[in-house]
């Protein structure tokens, strides 16, 4: 991990306080490699290293008896600052029924996360309602209906001949019949560069006025994460991110990149395929795994 690699970089130091420019350059290279290996965006890594360098040539490292540990400490502090303190909670403020909208690339975990969210809200004493607004993918409506049945949450019976905007509008009547207070719209996966489909999402958002527009993003996303998140945010206006498949060994640099560039809070993380596998996001845990 990074601590070991930095210790290695500095192990030839004789005495203390005499760090050379080369020592610092080597240390910064190790940090940069760790970040890029963890899928942190190239530019984000560059800016981050510049910040670390400023501090690394200061007293705290140069005068330290344990420079490697000092550098690790600085990196951890800077990462923590970047990721923000606590995770921001879900927005549960507003006139009932609250609307949540789930968006993102194909296969990121929107449908599964919609159901997980419904279960979580149910546990918190709410009355969630699921809306299958993906009329595109084979058996997508059926998928959400089955998940809803598993957790005993009502699901709108979307008309396959309709269109996603109309389905979302029509579902309000169904939600009202169930006395639902939170409606979760599960939309079809789409590319951020697909103009008509991004316009469709905008139309849904403008009509339904969700209090949460969540980007569901895969934790293993690479350098393209910033591109995807920025585009969805520019076109729609997002309120947060849910990172999925976090329980694997993906280092999750995409999360840092999204936070650094787009500034969106990561509200929740998916940690498994079962419907109870949803947790609050812990910024410090992510920092730890990015450094490896």
């Amino acid at each position, binding site marked *: 991990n990074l601590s070991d690699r930095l210790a290695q970089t500095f192990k030839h130091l004789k005495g203390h306080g005499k760090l050379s420019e080369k020592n610092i350059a080597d240390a910064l290279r190790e940090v940069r490699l760790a970040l890029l290996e963890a899928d942190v965006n190239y530019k984000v890594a560059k800016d981050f290293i510049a910040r670390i360098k400023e501090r690394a040539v200061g007293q705290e490292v140069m005068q330290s008896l344990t420079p490697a540990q000092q550098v690790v400490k600085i990196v951890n502090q800077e990462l923590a600052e970047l990721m923000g303190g606590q995770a921001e909670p879900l927005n549960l403020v507003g006139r009932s029924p609250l609307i949540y909208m789930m968006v993102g*690339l*194909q*296969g990121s975990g929107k449908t599964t996360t919609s159901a997980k969210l419904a279960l979580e809200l149910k546990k918190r004493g709410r009355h969630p309602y699921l809306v299958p607004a993906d009329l595109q*993918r*084979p058996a997508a409506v059926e998928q959400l209906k089955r998940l809803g049945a598993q957790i005993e949450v009502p699901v709108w019976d979307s008309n396959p001949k309709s269109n996603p905007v109309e389905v979302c509008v029509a579902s309000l009547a169904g939600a009202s019949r169930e006395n639902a207070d939170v409606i979760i719209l599960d939309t079809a996966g789409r*590319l951020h560069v697909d103009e008509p489909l991004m316009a469709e999402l905008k139309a849904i958002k403008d009509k339904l006025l969700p209090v949460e527009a969540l980007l569901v993003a895969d934790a293993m996303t690479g350098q393209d994460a910033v591109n*995807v998140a920025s585009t969805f945010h520019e076109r729609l206006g997002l309120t947060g991110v849910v990172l999925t498949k976090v*329980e694997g*060994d993906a280092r999750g640099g995409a999360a840092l990149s999204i936070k650094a560039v787009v500034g969106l809070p990561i509200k929740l993380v998916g940690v498994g395929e079962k419907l109870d596998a949803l947790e609050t996001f812990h910024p410090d845990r992510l920092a730890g795994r990015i450094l490896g």
Partner: protein
Amino acid sequence: ITLGKKIDDEVLDELEEVLVTADLGVPTTLELIEGLRGKVARKELDDAEALKKALAQGIQTVLENTAPPPSRDNDPHVIMVVGVNGVGKTTSIGKLAHRFQQTEKRQVLLAAGDTFRAAAGEQLEVWAQRAGCDIVRQKHGADPSAVAWDAVDAAQNRGKDLVIIDTAGRLHTKVNLMEELKKVQRVVAKRLPGAPHEVLLVLDATTGQNAVSQAKLFHQAVPLNGLILTKLDGTAKGGVVVAIAKELKLPICYVGLGEGIEDLRPFDPAEFAKALF
């Protein structure tokens, strides 16, 4: 970025950025650039454009120096499709079925080996209808190995000469799920010695360096014969396959370029290498 520019540190930095941003990863990128340092020093590459072309050629060579995919003249030829969650396995199988039936005149039978995820069987069923091929399914929660066995059985009884087994998405780090995959392979081999003749790992082009870990661990569980790289119609470049080709010698067999049944193409190393820049 490179037209008419002399090769200096700025150019090398720019090329490093292009390749790392394309998800090639730092080690692979540095190896490729280092590999050309000699030529640069000997002035065999005189400007940035020449260096870029040489890099593309280097990448193309790595992608071509892979094991040949297995021959498909088995009857039936059995293909097993694996990969982590949501990468595009089921959709790619639908596309492959269509391709094999249309252009290669094979009689395809699909095995709905994902008996875990909600509506997985229904999803593959739609693809079978679209491709006009048979499908073998069991009820939700059935043993995937049993479905695979049934499918190979049915193929032989019905005179189908190509079987494609869909499996549930699974993270490569989940030991019990990797064991389940090994069991499917063992059971299929028992039913038809030599099968599955071809195991393809599906990778999502938006995936970063984790794809290397995916390839390594899936390869350890069930020896892979090739890769399918999906979602190349997005903005991600899928450069991580270069590292995988280099380390595991696995060929990229097909690329997915969309959600329709025709959106699958054989992989072209030269085209892919050029598109990275």
